């Protein structure tokens, strides 16, 4: 299938670039589409990172008012965890780290006073295991211990991320549909304004495909120019947002990044937009031409 017209045929229509509203409408559509796609990709990346880094982690708290018993149970729990097949790593949270965690709420003296502070153990599970597997052994080793499963705690957040990811995908599809509609309307308008020329070309023996190629070439070039413009604007916004998010220094927000293939996918959107516009124009023109002899 010949997608682009040879030089001789290309001279059959006026070569006006960015003359109508279509390239600018496509630039706006592409701007929004790239932002939606970038959001979706970043959210997917964040969900993956969360699944990899946080979901396989649990915290064990030994809640016992008696400091000696608490310490004994914490040691027993740590020893049990070190032997347990579901555990990749278990590490006692030091008093200094606990003090730093409590300081914003209880002040610097929390660890030194009579306030019973639980002993904490950070556990990293091997893939395919969840924290519930530790419960029976832990109940024997440290009856005062309880398990905080990060995956369960993060479930509402990962659910939200997944929903936002699909929303972004839906927005990209809707934007692509709106772009197609713009192209169809533009092609119909061009057909109407060039009707006399099309009639002459038909009577001189031009085929539907020859005429359609003239329109699809013009529309593809306009769509590509608009797409590049929209992409440039959206990339600038994405980079700016990335700089701002990085400045927050949050582990959660910091996971909102784009992999190299994400950037490649965004860069490919104007090409995809151009191909979509080209085929929409081709289909529209051929469908219209079939209604005339």
């Amino acid at each position, binding site marked *: 299938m010949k997608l682009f017209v040879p*030089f001789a045929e290309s001279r059959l229509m006026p070569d006006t670039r960015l003359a109508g509203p279509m390239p600018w409408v496509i630039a706006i559509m592409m701007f929004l589409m790239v932002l939606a796609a970038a959001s979706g990709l970043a959210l997917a990346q964040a969900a993956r990172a969360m699944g990899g880094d946080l979901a396989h982690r649990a915290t064990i708290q030994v809640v016992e008012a008696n400091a000696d018993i608490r310490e004994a149970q914490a040691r027993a729990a740590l020893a049990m965890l070190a032997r347990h097949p579901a555990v990749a790593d278990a590490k006692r949270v030091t008093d200094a780290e606990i003090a730093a965690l409590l300081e914003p709420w209880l002040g610097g003296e929390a660890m030194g006073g009579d306030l019973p502070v639980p002993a904490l153990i950070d556990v990293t599970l091997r893939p395919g295991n969840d924290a519930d597997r530790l419960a029976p052994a832990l109940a024997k080793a440290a009856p005062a211990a309880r398990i905080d499963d990060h995956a369960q705690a993060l479930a509402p957040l990962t659910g939200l991320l997944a929903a936002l990811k699909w929303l972004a995908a839906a927005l990209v599809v809707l934007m692509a549909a709106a772009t197609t509609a713009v192209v169809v309307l533009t092609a119909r308008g061009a057909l109407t304004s060039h009707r006399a*020329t099309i009639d*002459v070309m038909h*009577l001189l*023996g031009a085929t539907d495909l020859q005429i359609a190629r003239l329109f699809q070439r013009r529309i593809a070039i306009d769509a590509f120019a608009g797409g590049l413009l929209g992409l440039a604007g959206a990339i600038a916004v994405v980079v700016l947002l990335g700089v701002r998010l990085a400045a927050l220094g949050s582990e959660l927000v910091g996971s909102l990044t784009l992999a190299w293939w994400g950037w490649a996918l965004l860069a490919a959107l104007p090409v995809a937009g151009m191909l979509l516009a080209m085929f929409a124009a081709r289909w529209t023109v051929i469908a219209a031409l079939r209604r005339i002899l």
Partner: protein
Amino acid sequence: MGGIVQFDNVGLRYGTGAETLSDISFTLAPGTFHILTGPSGAGKTSLLKLLYLAQRPSRGLIRLFGEDIVTMPRARLPGFRRRIGVVFQDFRLVPYLSAYDNVALPLRVAGVSEKELDGPVREMLAWVGLANRATARPATLSGGEQQRVAIARAVIGRPELLVADEPTGNVDPEMAGRLIHLFDALNKLGTTIVVATHDIHLIGRVAHAQMMRLDRGRIADPTGALRHPPSRPAA
């Protein structure tokens, strides 16, 4: 048989109105020259539209170059149209193309390379006296000049059938004579020519032309010569 064009009981109706053309039957032998006359509204332009495949008939049979074009699939029509040259009454030049590009249009549509088409296009423009107007757009050309560009465009591809609707309506008698000479030369090379005109001088200028008269959508053929023409063109 052997006609390049054959109409058999052809009728043409636009929408639900009365028939514009009724019971049209004639055969045009290859290499003949025909002049179609008749009062305004007689159906001359409608008949020409059927000839240059802008319209299909409402009834009857039309054979062109030996093939039935009434039932022919739409996709095959462009190939037939390339064998027909048309001079439209309203010229129908492409407004954003130069005179050169307008004349070159049928060759470009047919896929002729720029290198191959340049010589014939310049020669044709010189023939119609527009060599120095090659780059001019139609809007800057006079009515007569536009008509000559339209004629050059119609004959550039050496068509097997040339259909012209009032081709000398906007040119002076001298240019009309040159154009008729061009048609005559083309006819001698084998092109079948059908010219619709009111110009009685034109009728007298082509001695071997056969007359076709349309009146109120019906063709007058009292001798039957149009239905059963001689196999060779009249001298």
